[in-house]
């Protein structure tokens, strides 16, 4: 194998796993370089668990988790963490909801107390007022991030094509305005009772910690929260690896240029094939020396930007997302012909040794970046614990990427990156908005 970059820098990191009596899994990882400690809590619930007519509920609920609990008033969670010199947030994806705090090391106990309080007692503070308020906030989040920006709904549109109607990943976590309006306080309460339990979560504590003390605190604050078995499994996300036909949607909208986007069904996360696909997308569209960038931006000059990204999914096929913004008057048909030619050639030849080395070096760098902060490390440990049952896999992930062969990368491209396995989304600008004043 041609790889010559640094040896995996995860070598020095270790983690231990523990389980409290109520089922909460606790992952600890020590690192005393900087006096900071990260707390990360993954709940095994995401938008794939939502039912018809209630899209967006998991994410709306995540907002409600910051509205106070039995011992924490109103915005107290934010105020206390920030007042202690910490930073915090929460995010919701298809497959999970995460909450995290990075604290100065001497404030670790506060973060654990806060997370335990809302895990155990959120419903005693949740009321109609905060529900209505956060519903409005989330609707504005949707407007700001999706509805009021050019191409903002592209991801939503492609996801809906790749995952058929009724599939748990057919809709994205932000949900629809109508469903957000329809969500009731009782829906939120039921959601909490169903999914927010210690045996449906993983807690990672990473950084400048005393592991024995950290575990004792975890037990003290979380240990008495009762577990329950009422969780509903998400609907089955299995799908054929190949869509079987190309789907296509043309959108005429007020966008600044034509665009050709496409989403491909790729192998599920946690498999060797997913790592091979990641390398294929990187060689094809992950940077300025990638094949598609070189072809479309440098040589043909039909694109202003061209790249591939991978959304790793564990409970359904992963998504490979191609995004090409056209240059000047370039036609989508020409761009698509060039893309198809490059993909076909790659599927036949595979990456060169040099391309393989570059792709592996890039993915290794991304891993180093993700593990460079205690917060990033805590999140990865939770990810592997929740989705694959073993946090240790986070520490060996980069090694698995470096172990993939050129032939495997070629095969992944040949099997998956084909026209009958993609949803194509084309944007055509409306031609009525080109005056500009002021300058």
């Amino acid at each position, binding site marked *: 194998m041609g790889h010559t970059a640094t040896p995996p820098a995860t070598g020095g990191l270790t983690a231990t796993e523990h389980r409290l009596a109520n089922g909460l899994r606790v992952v600890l990882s020590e690192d005393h*370089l900087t006096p900071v400690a990260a707390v990360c809590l993954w709940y095994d619930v995401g938008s794939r668990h939502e039912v018809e007519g209630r899209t967006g509920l998991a994410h709306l609920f995540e907002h409600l988790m910051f509205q106070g609990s039995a011992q924490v008033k109103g915005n107290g969670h934010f105020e206390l963490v*920030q007042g202690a010199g910490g930073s915090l947030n929460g995010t919701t994806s298809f497959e999970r909801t995460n909450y995290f705090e990075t604290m100065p090391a001497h404030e670790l106990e506060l973060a654990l107390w806060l997370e335990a309080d809302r895990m155990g007692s959120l419903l005693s503070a949740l009321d109609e007022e905060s529900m209505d308020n956060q519903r409005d906030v989330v609707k504005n989040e949707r407007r700001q991030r999706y*509805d009021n920006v050019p191409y903002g709904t592209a991801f939503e549109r492609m996801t809906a094509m790749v995952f058929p109607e009724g599939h748990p990943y057919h809709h994205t976590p932000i949900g629809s305005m109508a469903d957000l309006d329809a969500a009731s306080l009782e829906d939120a309460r039921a959601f909490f009772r169903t999914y927010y339990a210690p045996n449906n979560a993983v807690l990672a504590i990473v950084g400048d910690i005393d592991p024995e003390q950290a575990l004792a605190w975890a037990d003290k604050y979380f240990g008495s929260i009762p577990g329950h078995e009422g969780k509903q499994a998400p609907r089955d996300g299995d799908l054929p690896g190949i869509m079987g036909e190309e789907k296509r949607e043309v959108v005429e909208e007020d966008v600044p240029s034509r665009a050709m986007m496409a989403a491909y069904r790729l192998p599920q996360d946690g498999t060797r094939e997913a790592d091979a696909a990641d390398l294929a997308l990187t060689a094809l569209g992950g940077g300025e020396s990638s094949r598609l960038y070189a072809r479309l931006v440098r040589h043909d*000059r039909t694109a202003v930007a061209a790249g591939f990204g991978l959304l790793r999914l564990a409970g359904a096929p992963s998504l490979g997302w191609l995004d090409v913004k056209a240059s000047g008057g370039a036609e989508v048909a020409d761009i698509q012909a060039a893309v198809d030619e490059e993909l076909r050639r790659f599927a036949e030849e595979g990456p060169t040794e040099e391309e393989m080395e570059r792709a592996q070096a890039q993915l290794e760098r991304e891993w180093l970046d993700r593990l460079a902060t205690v917060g990033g490390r805590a999140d990865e440990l939770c990810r592997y614990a929740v989705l694959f049952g073993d946090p240790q896999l986070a520490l060996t992930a980069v090694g698995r990427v470096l172990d993939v062969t050129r032939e495997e990368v070629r095969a992944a491209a040949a099997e998956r990156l084909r026209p009958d396995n993609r949803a194509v989304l084309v944007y055509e600008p409306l031609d009525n908005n080109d005056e500009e004043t*002021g300058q």
Partner: protein
Amino acid sequence: MSETEAPAGVQSSMDFHPQPRSGTPKPWAFPTPERGTLPNGLTVLRCHRPGQEVVAVEVNLLAPLDAEPEGLDGVATIMARALNEGTDKHDAEEFAAELERCGATLDSHADHPGVRVSLEVPVSRLPKALGLMADALRAPAFPDSEIERLVANRLDEIPHELANPARRAAKELSHELFPAESRMSRPRQGTEETVRGIDAAAVRAFYEAHVRPATATAVVVGDLEGVDLDAALTDTLGAWKGSTAEPRPMPPISADDSGRVVIVDRPGAVQTQLLIGRIGADRHDRVWPAQLLGVYCLGGTLTSRLDRVLREEKGYTYGVRSFGQVLRSTPEGTGAAMLAISGSVATDVTGPALADLWQVLRTLAAEGLTDEERDVAVRNLVGVAPLRYETAAAVAGTLADQVEQFLPDDFQGQLYARLAETGTVEATAAAVNALPADRLVTILVGDASQIADPVRELGIGEVKVVTGG
């Protein structure tokens, strides 16, 4: 379900414990770099950060936007981008490939104080990547065809930027605030007209006039143990030759902040993008720590005054922030910072949201901050330092900002001490002076047919509507 505050009302109750007390803080200080000069005049700041395997190198070039020739706005940007497009050793594609082979990224951008070139690379490949960076600075090829492509690419980007409400608002605010002859009134990366006029000769001329080791500084941060940095620098950035140069005088910055409103019309927009600003004190001003503190209390986070009302009480927005962003800073006091409030609100509540926003500003001026607000803000701004500076890139970025703004190397460390000494009264005064309710220029990117009338009724200044973009 109990509606009282008592934990006792919770079903299947957990054991509640009182809020824990803080432990004993461990000492942490912003790192002080070691400063030196290479024989070619290049200033080098180095900083060893144990465990930081990805090394960050920031190079500041004293090539400010103000130095761009008349009518060639954007030439600094095209030059910065062209540094990545080949050298005397590699053509553009080979150069990109060599960088990626190191797992390195090299980004450059031009801003008012100068051009910044940023390298990040795993430490084992530092010498090789420093070599590539040095080639880019020392002997950029600037091939005609690549420059032509970068110009075309830049022209393609402009409509994308104008379509983005936040970018569009920023462009309009600069246009409104600064006099037309000031470089600051115009887009940093040029307009369609000026970019069209840029060619390889113009890029080379700008490079020859403004890029040289004697006026450049390199900041190197990361786990440098076991790296012979002196040798690596001598072979790479040390081999860069160039003449000395007289420092360029920086023109003072002025702005017209008489209260007024400009609506950039976007028929059908579901939100209104707000950008409300003026200019004020920069980091060389004694008031900077108090201003930082006061502006944070006003709108630094979702528990600050603006979001407490606009987001957490009214639900008008996903979030509104106030901030100070240094445009340029000099010891002579000719610098300034952009002080602003930004965010987006639902179209139908634009009038009420602005009314509330102004009410927050007036209440702050009338009643001041509370001691508790000040204390929480100081604890946050000072307390987050070890988190904020966990990575080499974060430390290098701040050190390079200090260099660019002609500040001493211990500025950030001193800032934490000064924040801790700043009182509530000073912070209030600084925030009120920074963002006075009657001297703000308001840019609204949104649907004029829906928002213009309600905004006129607010009395926050004359309302002008511009179309397009």
